[in-house]
């Protein structure tokens, strides 16, 4: 009798332990939330070199400087090539509506608002679209963890992002490999509206102070057989920035 009771207690405890374990398992939404709230610098300044490589291996180079405040505000301006120098791009993100985006073209001396139709266009000839450069709002997607995977001794969650109805995006879904160490989406696959894989983004991150920051990003357009490598240099974090930096007046004077 005692043996039976002991066996029952063990079974019950095992059952409780399993259900508790199950409760602790991360859901897709929770993982997306963790990606969104992972520790990131309040402000970041960097210089980026973008190398555009076509299917024959021909290369073109663009150099830009950027300043960002969280994921909400970003100002970027071109340093090279010579005919793009002085062009600047300002983006402001909001929770409840579409991003505001402006482009300053020094040849016209004019700031132009970029309409949302242009979001799907390539940013200055690179493989990144304006949408890719923007802030992906987590409330616009539903999530599913597909599996867990180990690549090169790193543990990942594989997370699928599916846009909700009426969300204006170029993609039917995005699959991210989220590094368990720091919740950074290290690899991302982008699928077009027909469900075909369109692009792959890979990112190298390094720890600087308390933050995991990108040092290299590669966006490859599989269909066009074209890729853009982006290298981050001179990264400075948490420097105080005036609000006036993220204005259409300021974007005309950056050099």
């Amino acid at each position, binding site marked *: 009798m005692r043996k039976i009771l002991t066996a029952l207690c063990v079974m019950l405890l095992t059952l409780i332990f399993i259900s508790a374990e199950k409760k602790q398992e991360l859901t897709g939404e929770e993982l997306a939330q963790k990606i969104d709230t992972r520790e990131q610098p309040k402000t970041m300044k960097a210089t980026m070199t973008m190398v555009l490589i076509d299917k024959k291996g021909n290369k073109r180079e663009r150099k830009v400087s950027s300043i960002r405040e969280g994921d909400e505000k970003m100002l970027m301006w071109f340093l090279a090539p010579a*005919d793009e120098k002085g062009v600047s791009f300002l983006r402001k993100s909001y929770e409840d509506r579409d991003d505001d985006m402006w482009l300053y073209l020094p040849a*016209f001396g004019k700031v132009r*608002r970029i309409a949302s139709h242009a979001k799907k266009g390539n940013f200055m000839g690179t493989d990144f679209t304006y949408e890719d450069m923007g802030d992906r709002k987590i409330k616009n997607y539903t999530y599913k963890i597909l599996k867990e995977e180990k690549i090169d001794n790193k543990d990942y969650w594989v997370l699928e992002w599916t846009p909700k109805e009426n969300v204006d995006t170029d993609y039917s879904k995005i699959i991210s490999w989220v590094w368990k160490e720091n919740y950074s989406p290290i690899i991302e696959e982008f699928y077009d509206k027909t469900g075909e894989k369109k692009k792959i983004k890979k990112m190298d991150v390094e720890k600087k102070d308390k933050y995991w920051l990108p040092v290299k990003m590669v966006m490859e357009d599989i269909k066009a057989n074209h890729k853009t490598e982006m290298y981050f240099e001179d990264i400075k974090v948490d420097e105080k920035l005036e609000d006036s930096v993220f204005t259409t007046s300021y974007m005309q004077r950056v050099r």
Partner: protein
Amino acid sequence: MKKYYIVLILIILFFANVFADTTYELRGSLREWVKVIVNTPGKVSLIESRLKLELLSTLSQEIAFKSRVYTVYSPKIYNEIKFNLQEAYIDYYTEIMDIRIGRQIISWGKADELNPTDILNPEDISNIFEEKSIRKIGVFGIKLDLKLFDSVITGIYIPDIQFHKLPEAHSTWDFFSIGLKKMGLITLPSILYPENSLDNSEWAIKISKTIENFDFTLSFADVIDNLFSIKMKIIPPGIPTPDYLYYNRTQMIAADFAASLFEFGVWAEVAYFITKDKDGTDPFMKNPYFQYVIGMDYTLPFDIKINIQYFREDVTCVNDDKEKELEKKSFSPTGLSIPVKQVGSLRLGKNFGEANANSLEIFCIYDIEEKGVMMGPRILISPTDAFKVETGAFVFDGQENSIFNMFNLNDEVYVKATYSF
């Protein structure tokens, strides 16, 4: 002009010694442009070499300098090398205000090319197919941008008035003489320029604000016209004859906006020009008039970009029908000075090739009232960064009396090559 430039350079060098963190940057481009008239095979209408040099200097976080100089050799238009200091100014930035002093380009309005509110810089329209940014003539002025409660209030004072530079009389693109002929005038008398005094200064004020996804602007300007009016005299036995050409003062009340609506980019500009002929007594001076433009752009399938605009001018009426007809034909002295009253424009373009650096585009402007059209297809190839070759055409057609039909023997093809450094 050269002296003025040298003085500015000396000022910069002086400041450079005062501020240790000075940085300099020299950049620019060389553009070669050849145009040939198709209807007269072999007739070259333009051969031009244009060297653009920009000197930028940052003396400190608060002070910067910029200048842009064009050196142009264009034997078909000028007989000598032209030196044009388009911009040379000093910027001083503070937390609440930015100040710009010197020769400058001031761009107003949200529309593309057809900007009725963009009146502070006159234009050199001796080559009407030149890019607008190059056509603009720099003016010496003081500009203040005051940042106040999420708005920017811009004030401009221009003591140095300048005027449109028109094509040579009876030259290939002398649209002005053609327009005057429509008014029944054959010869033009001499121009009486306004005195260079502070009384003739121009000033303007603008308030800009972004509300949600709308960028709004309201503005007022008090300016000397960019284009002259005609003073008539009556010679016996009562025939009106041009006496002299002169420049009037006009006030402009204007508004514009740009927005992103349902994926479309939309914009509009409206300007009301208050001329001196408020009571409508002078048939050769325009009554107050409205000019407005509305436009939109969108990306079609296959990444084809479309840009559509509609422009219209309406002259206010003062119950004098005799004057009304003549005024409809006359040039507007400020705002858009083109001799058309209602036009639609369409631009279709697609980028292609490596880094999307090449483009194919067709531009078309249609005179809705007189049924005339100008088309401008072009292809731009960039085999490597900072080097572009462009070829295209300008084709004219329309009903007999339309301004575009009057150029129908001027159809052109061109080649342009630009190297930037």
